[in-house]
């Protein structure tokens, strides 16, 4: 404590220092590394170091990054009348019919064959990443942002506020997430924005509950009480001192949820509820070609029309889940309530 007249300085409660320290004691390799390093490593730096050593996670990360790249550059992006991204990775317009014959098998001209209307499946699968992949990230970002704020407020203030706010969360959890998303989409129509809205509306609750539980623990820490004692405002305490220290499980949940959202959107697409027919979203493509799975007596299975979109869903979800698992391990948190259809 400072003895300087007119000023009181409480030492040992600087949140920056606390944030820089991992709460858990390092073990194994980490312990050795920590011993080598005079400063205890930053948690996020340690996560990155651990991810770098996880080949599965790196592979998953690479696939996700490639898919994000493809999503951006698959087709030109026009905002208003201005083309902000002129490149196009697809050899054909994914909506154009008759670029090949009906159900052409994979060839050099059409690496993934053509569909029933002679559209190039490769172009559609590539363009489909813009819908299927981006929606996972957008939904998760929205749902996590709102959920963190909601759960943060609920957990921080506690009491009646917490009780009322958590009952709303219970109401959301009372509905099967995918069914609730279906109802919302059928009410407000399909398309990118309604789907984002539907999945975000059903997905935020899991983040709210997770962070609220963490906050109930974190807010008991001395540095929080000290901040309050020093007269910090609730907003500052919550967003500067508590949430940054409770966010780790949310990050893990978010990483794992991206794949769940993509699966959910594909499921709605397969049920004909996602995007308008003809949209090259992977689930919608599967729905449009499902009749090819049962061909009638002695018929040919045009496998490429369903295998490639299905494989892309599998590849992306598998990859993002591998990244999520690695983040989970690195942060050493237990998130085991990833809910279907959540965001």
């Amino acid at each position: 404590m400072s003895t300087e007249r007119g000023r009181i300085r409480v030492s040992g409660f600087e949140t920056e220092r606390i944030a820089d320290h991992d709460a858990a004691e390092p073990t194994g390799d980490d312990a050795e590394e920590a011993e080598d390093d005079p400063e205890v490593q930053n948690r996020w730096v340690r996560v990155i170091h651990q991810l770098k050593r996880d080949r599965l996670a790196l592979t998953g990360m690479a696939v996700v990054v490639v898919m994000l790249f493809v999503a951006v550059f698959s087709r030109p992006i026009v905002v208003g009348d201005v083309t902000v991204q002129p490149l196009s990775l697809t050899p054909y317009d994914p909506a154009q019919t008759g670029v090949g014959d009906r159900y052409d098998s994979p060839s050099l001209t059409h690496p993934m064959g053509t569909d029933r209307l002679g559209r190039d499946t490769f172009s559609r699968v590539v363009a489909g990443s813009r819908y299927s992949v981006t929606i996972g990230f957008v939904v998760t970002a929205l749902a996590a942002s709102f959920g963190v704020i909601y759960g943060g407020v609920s957990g921080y203030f506690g009491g009646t506020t917490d009780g009322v706010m958590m009952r709303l969360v219970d109401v959301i959890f009372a509905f099967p997430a995918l069914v609730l998303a279906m109802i919302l989409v059928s009410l407000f129509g399909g398309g990118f924005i309604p789907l984002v809205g539907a999945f975000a509306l059903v997905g935020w609750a899991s983040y709210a509950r997770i962070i609220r539980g963490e906050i109930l623990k974190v807010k008991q820490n001395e540095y929080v009480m000290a901040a309050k004692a020093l007269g910090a405002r609730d907003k500052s305490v919550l967003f500067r001192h508590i949430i940054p220290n409770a966010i780790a499980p949310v990050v893990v949940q978010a990483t794992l949820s991206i794949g769940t959202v993509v699966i959910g959107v594909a499921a709605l697409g397969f049920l004909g509820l996602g995007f308008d027919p003809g949209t090259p979203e992977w689930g919608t493509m599967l729905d449009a070609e499902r009749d090819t799975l049962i061909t009638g007596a002695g018929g040919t299975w045009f496998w490429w029309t369903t295998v490639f979109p299905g494989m892309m869903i599998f590849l992306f979800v598998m990859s993002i889940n591998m990244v999520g698992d690695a983040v989970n391990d690195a942060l050493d948190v237990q998130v085991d309530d990833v809910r279907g259809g959540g965001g």
Partner: protein
Amino acid sequence: MAGCLGEDDDDEVDIDPALERNDIDVDEIQDGGTLEVSIPRDSIDDYDAAESSAAEDTAVFSLVYDNLLTTDAEGTTELWMAEEYDAVDSQNVDYEDYEEYMREEEIVEIDGGIPIFDLDDDLNLVLLQHPEDLEGAEEGDEVRVLTRHEAEDAVDDGVYGTQVSGRLHEGIEFHNGDECTAGDIVGSYDRYVGSTNQGQVFDAFMYAEAPDGDDGYEFNLYSLEPDAAAFVELPPIDLFPEEHHDLGPGELEPRAGGPVPVGTGPYEIAEFDEGSVLRLERTDNYWVEEVGLENLPDYDGPADFPERPAIEEINVRFVPESSQRSAALEDGDLDVTYELASDARNNFMQSDDFDVSAQESTGYKFMQFPLEDTDEGGAFAEAEVRQAVSALMPRQTIVDVVEQGWGSPAQAPIPEPASDFGTAMGYDELIEQEFAYSVEPDEERATELIEQSSFEAPIEVTIQTNADDDERIDKMSLVVDQLNQSGLFDAELETPAALGDWTTGDLYTDEAHIDDAENNACAVIGLATGFDPHGYIEAIHDPENWNGCCNFYFPPGTFDDEFVDLLNGCRFGADVAEDPDLRRERYDEFWEAHTDLMANTIVDYSLTTLTFNEDVAGVNCHPNTQSIFTYAVYAPLDEQIAYLDR
């Protein structure tokens, strides 16, 4: 667009064998067995034929109900339960002739511009409203109307449009043993009052009588207006026994505790359960056996042809998904099914163990444009824009790629099977006329039309169709792509109400014609209207049929009087009722006006198909989906009978 689609003939399946009849040897017919069939729904929509509007229900219950007339595979109407039946006379009458029989009724409500009356008798309804009283009429006003109660007086005084007289065969029994007499014809109309199908029955019908009493066999049917189609339009849709005459709409529903439907058809309902079981058994008192085939005026087949179906039982299964029906047929769970995907149909056709029977049908897909001239949108208010969309429609590609040849591109506003009374020039000449639809996209013509319009290309338009119909979606995907490739339109495809009923929920509303006009949105649905040419124009144009199937954009006042007069003049009038050639000429005038106005444009005409395994012999398809099973199983006037040869 679609540059090479359909041009590769290597994999093309020849469907001509499916269009040929499957003949059988009468001596080889085997009696008995259970035929497993499926309908593309998850249940019967409504067991009450007066209330049901689902074609799949009718396909099943046409095995239970026979009628006065029947239609052969060529579309020719023939006498069936009627021993005699003829349009006796027609006379020009209008509302002024009915004035003295009208009574005053108070308008209790105006719903969508249509006055609603609260009549004292549930079985009564308004047949005609005095047009002079309706101008500016509001709720609470008294207007002159002609109801069913007054129709008898008018007929007694010789005031009617067309009279059709006939006589039932003696000895026809319902499944419950009651004899079917003229009283059952008269009483059956009561069941349609207030029902879903009321409009379909009472749009032309005015009065029925049994001159020899209810137990007699003679009957007279009268129409309100002189009607060239009275011959086929006046009989009730189905004939009900006396014990069912008093049942209200929807009360003939065994799932709700009501009685089981009883008819005079070859099969009766033996067992039912919601969504899982519907078993029909061959009736043991079928009227054809009693009357004898030789006594049917239109029968000219062999003397030893069976007088009842050969198949003992029909088990109806409910399989909504076409892929599931394909699998069930392949696995042997079904003997006969219909509405399979064209690829699956091709595969079954090429298989040695299965076969397909097809027939040019009366079904078609059409695109309807909202004509409202709205401040926002309103592109379809201009005929040039509508004509440009029609000119760009890749009709041949649609049939080649989506239907795989199981259909035909629309070239005229009526299909060939319905053209007998529909043109004086012959169908081949009709489709050569300048106003005929182009089967290939005509970009040059479309460009000219858009340049003549007040809109600048590209015009943003939306094409809407049913979310649950994959083939329709594919067809419209091709249209949307063609419109976009032309550079004249910026088109998109929408399938509204994925979980609900788009047509009843969105299209048949008072606002649809304005909302969709503002959004430059048109709608594409399908319809099957039978063999009378008027079905192809009345249902989709007649302003009096607004918000009924299938006019969702044209309320009264949409078309000018000249067009409406031309439309009505093809069917209503003593001249066309008595002179079929004049009627044909009227239609030829109308087709030109029809395609010039382009309020609707036809996309394609379908084939009806039945896909079946080798256990079933003698299957042939009927052009009407509603008659698809009953025709295949037993239609002696066409010497049609199917049997099981397991």
